[in-house]
């Protein structure tokens, strides 16, 4: 079970450090660059996981956006951000029948559910939206997270217009369309939620009868 990677390389690095110690004031890391660590980290990620249940190791595969969003210590430059956002908006799949509003009661159930796509879930289980984990939504549910903004009274504030409906639809389908490297999952892009479910969540947020706006 010992997973040894680049032990040899490290041994060499130590020797190099010892040789260069006078020159670089004993900072051993000077001979190992950040790029070396990037390579080591990639190898460790690849070697440390195995498949379990419905989850295969291809879950670790990152697209261009996630590679960029995994870099720490600096933010996206403007060009990249604009490119990611434009590409995200372009791939949003709009509702086949042109209807954005479903049943807010169903939307509330989806917003409450955190099920789906883990290795303890079954392949045919309906996925939840996990919305309350990060957002305040209705007044009644006090157990809500604060990773995302409050959506309470969202429709009341922004109006139930077609423009708002389309914005909310696209935001759920691929939130990178408006904010590259957001914490929010790409629910439509990755097939976490289907068209019908997204319609219900749009209703939860925008329908004037939804407790989000009515209470």
């Amino acid at each position, binding site marked *: 079970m010992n997973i040894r990677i680049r032990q040899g390389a490290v041994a060499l690095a130590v020797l190099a450090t010892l040789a260069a110690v006078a020159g670089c004031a004993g900072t051993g890391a000077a001979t190992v660059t950040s790029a070396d660590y990037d390579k080591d980290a990639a190898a460790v990620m690849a070697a440390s996981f195995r498949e379990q249940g419905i989850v295969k190791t291809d879950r670790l595969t990152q697209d261009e956006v996630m590679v960029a969003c995994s870099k720490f210590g600096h933010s996206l430059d403007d060009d990249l951000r604009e490119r990611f956002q434009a590409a995200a908006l372009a791939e949003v799949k709009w509702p086949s029948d042109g209807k954005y509003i479903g049943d807010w009661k169903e939307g509330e159930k989806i917003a*409450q*559910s*955190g*099920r*789906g796509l*883990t290795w303890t879930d079954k392949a045919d289980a309906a996925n*939840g939206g*996990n919305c*309350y*984990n990060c957002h305040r939504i209705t007044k009644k549910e*006090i*157990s809500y*997270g604060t990773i995302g903004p409050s959506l309470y009274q969202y429709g009341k504030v922004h109006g139930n217009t077609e423009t708002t409906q389309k914005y909310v639809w696209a935001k759920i389908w691929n939130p990178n369309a408006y904010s590259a490297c957001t914490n929010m999952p790409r629910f439509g892009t990755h097939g976490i939620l289907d068209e019908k479910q997204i319609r219900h969540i749009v209703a939860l947020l925008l329908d004037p009868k939804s407790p989000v706006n009515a209470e």
Partner: protein
Amino acid sequence: MNTQRREVLKSGSAAGLFGLLVAAGLITTQQAQAAGWDKPAFEAKAMDEALKALGAGKPADSKDVQISGPDIAENGAVVPVGVKSALADTEFIAILIEKNPSMLAASFTLPAGTMADVSTRVKMGQTSNVFALVKAGGSFYMVSKEIKVTLGGCGG
């Protein structure tokens, strides 16, 4: 760490715990006969039924009985509940949870010299009133408190 004598009483006796305690001279036969798990009370599905099984009838409200617990529990699996009574000769305390499948969670018989101040932890399936039933000087009293049970994050 306190030294503890870790002995499991030899099983095989049909007499149960109280029989063993009698055998060990720890309690009298009379005490043992008065005891025994109160199945009808623990299996009662409604308040009236549970109170009847406990012989409590219609208990009165009392300012001298306090039930303590959180207003909100992060997890219904473990909800701390305490009961204190300032009534003279408090001899019995029970904790009941209105919306549990069976309401009675635990009961305590307090011999003279034991304070009417007990705490334990109970399971709650959902937000509910929690009742403290107390018997003092031969009469029953009851107070309640609402405890909210919330959902957890990360898919529950």
